[in-house]
């Protein structure tokens, strides 16, 4: 992929190795040479990633958070839901590292158990948003014409709803006071409202980069060589449009954790039997002056989680983007 002769010809991402678009140019070479030479985009990215300490640090943190979300018992034996009012707002000590909250619940245990709801909601929403928005964006940008018009109008309908406002309306309708949804159903509703209101942004992002890319020489060349639509989209368009999507996606994990917290703060998101960092922060903000540690610890976990996701995305983007090599 790093052939200097092709690199100097175009400013847009360089043409794929001939070996990948047509018959292998090195078919005559011995087996070992052929294996060493051309790698796919992902193989190349992986080789690049393995050498980055930032990637390993963030990946480790994410792994820890994922384990925390799956098996919170491994990290704490405390009770995240029940507390004793006699310990209300007791400062951090050797017994309870992070202290106790207003209800006398162990903040450490709650922070650990809170990872599950916060991360599950954010990650599932981002995956849903990227899948729906990315697919729609590619279809709209690549097909153009009436397909583009139709998809863009559908996206506009959802896009027209301001985020917080739309989420409040959706959630008060399905999750308002007086409804008794189960823990998982509440989470599902929050995820649904996040995805429904965010996918148009991803779609527009994808569409605009497809629009700018599809006129590029290497796409025209691939088409002239007889590549089908599926091949052009998957092999040429997608890898070259993926970088901004990934950057946006990783940032989105953070903003979705924040959005979940905002909705909890407004009283329409996740609710109290569920433990999440967002709920903890919104419970803590009334006591920010007397007991700042209540805000500090969930916010710390939140920031570390977000930082790891964003750093991972950053590393992946630089590895995936041939233009930055």
């Amino acid at each position, binding site marked *: 992929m790093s052939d200097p002769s092709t690199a100097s010809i175009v400013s847009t991402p360089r043409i794929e190795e001939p070996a990948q678009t047509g018959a292998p140019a090195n078919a005559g070479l011995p087996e070992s040479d052929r294996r060493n030479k051309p790698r796919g985009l992902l193989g190349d990215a992986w080789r690049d990633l393995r050498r980055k300490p930032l990637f390993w640090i963030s990946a480790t943190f994410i792994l820890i958070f994922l384990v925390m979300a799956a098996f919170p018992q491994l990290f704490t034996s405390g009770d995240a839901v029940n507390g004793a009012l006699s310990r209300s707002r007791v400062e951090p000590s050797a017994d309870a590292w992070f202290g106790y909250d207003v209800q006398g619940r162990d903040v450490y245990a709650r922070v650990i158990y809170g990872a599950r709801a916060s991360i599950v909601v954010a990650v599932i929403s981002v995956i849903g948003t990227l899948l729906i928005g990315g697919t729609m964006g590619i279809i709209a940008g690549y097909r153009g014409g009436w397909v583009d018009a139709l998809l863009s109008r559908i996206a506009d309908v959802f896009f027209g709803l301001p985020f917080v406002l739309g989420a409040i*309306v959706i959630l008060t309708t399905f999750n308002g006071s007086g409804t008794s949804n189960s823990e998982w159903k509440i989470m599902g509703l929050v995820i649904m409202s996040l995805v429904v209101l965010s996918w148009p942004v991803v779609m527009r*992002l994808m569409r605009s980069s497809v629009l700018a890319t599809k006129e590029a020489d290497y796409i025209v060349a691939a088409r002239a060589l007889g590549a089908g639509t599926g091949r052009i989209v998957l092999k040429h368009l997608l890898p070259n449009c993926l970088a901004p999507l990934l950057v946006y996606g990783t940032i989105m994990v953070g903003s979705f954790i924040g959005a979940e917290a905002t909705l909890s703060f407004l009283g329409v998101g996740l609710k109290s039997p569920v433990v999440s960092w967002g709920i903890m922060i919104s419970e803590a903000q009334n006591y920010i002056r007397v007991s700042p540690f209540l805000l500090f610890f969930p916010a710390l976990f939140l920031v570390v989680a977000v930082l790891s996701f964003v750093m991972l995305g950053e590393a992946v983007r630089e590895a995936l983007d041939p233009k930055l090599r």
Partner: protein
Amino acid sequence: MGRYLLRRLLQLVPVFIGTTFMIYWLVWSVPGDPFAGKCGERRCPDTYIAFMTEKYQLDQPVWVQYATYMKNLLQGDFGTKFSGQSINDIILTSYPNTLKLALVALGIEAVIGLGAGVLTGLRRNGFLDNLVLISTLFLIALPIFVIGFVTQWLFGVKWGIVTPTVSSEMRFSELILPGFVLGSVSMAYIARVARTSIAENRRGDYVRTAIAKGLPMRRVVGVHLLRNSLIPVVTLLGTDLGALMGGAIVTEGIFGINGIGRQVYRAILTKESATVVSIVVVLVLVYLLMNLLVDLLYAALDPRIRYE
């Protein structure tokens, strides 16, 4: 271009109807009795219920209600609250406040975000680059209400640099802090997107050619590089104005600004469905027109993108 504009304006119509109908349907299908608590401590009298049901056509299917609402809207009548107060008045008093706040936020985020993005995109991996990366991460990572409370407490209460809440006169000096809080997340996005975009285009052949031609660096960056890197930033900025106005609910609540965000939140909680729908209608209109503007700017900024 003229035909394109006309086509886009026509396309706005179904989108406008789709969005407003969706909101109308959602808002009016909020479970619960619309008359609960409307008449103080006691149950509403039957005559009142009958009158209101008749007036708001509550016994009709939702699309009939919607059609009537739209018919009145086209004549400039947003309807009335259950208490009889005209919704036009509510919008007229609260809308300018929100618009002012959103414009201040947009200005702050454009200047700071774009400036930081350009500076770091040109010099990657330096001290400034890392500083901006980390500070944008924090802006993104912290929920807006945390940023709001913390800055309000620090600047307003502890250091006393600004007044903690905004007076009804909405002076510009009072709006800087709320504007910064409201625009903080988008500011971080803009800085990062601009940085990525500049860094990618920095290595483009046309930049090298421009430098080789002997153009001064200022012209290379200001004309060649910036113009090509601005496309994603313009998308963000343009769509942000609508988002800022709709997202101002939290900021307006914290700083005590009497804007539409505050009105709409109150209206949702008190089930004043007509108010909710009307405010959303206004917001949607702004949103749609801004999107149209962004699309027109696309073609102006990037000649590679053509609308037949």
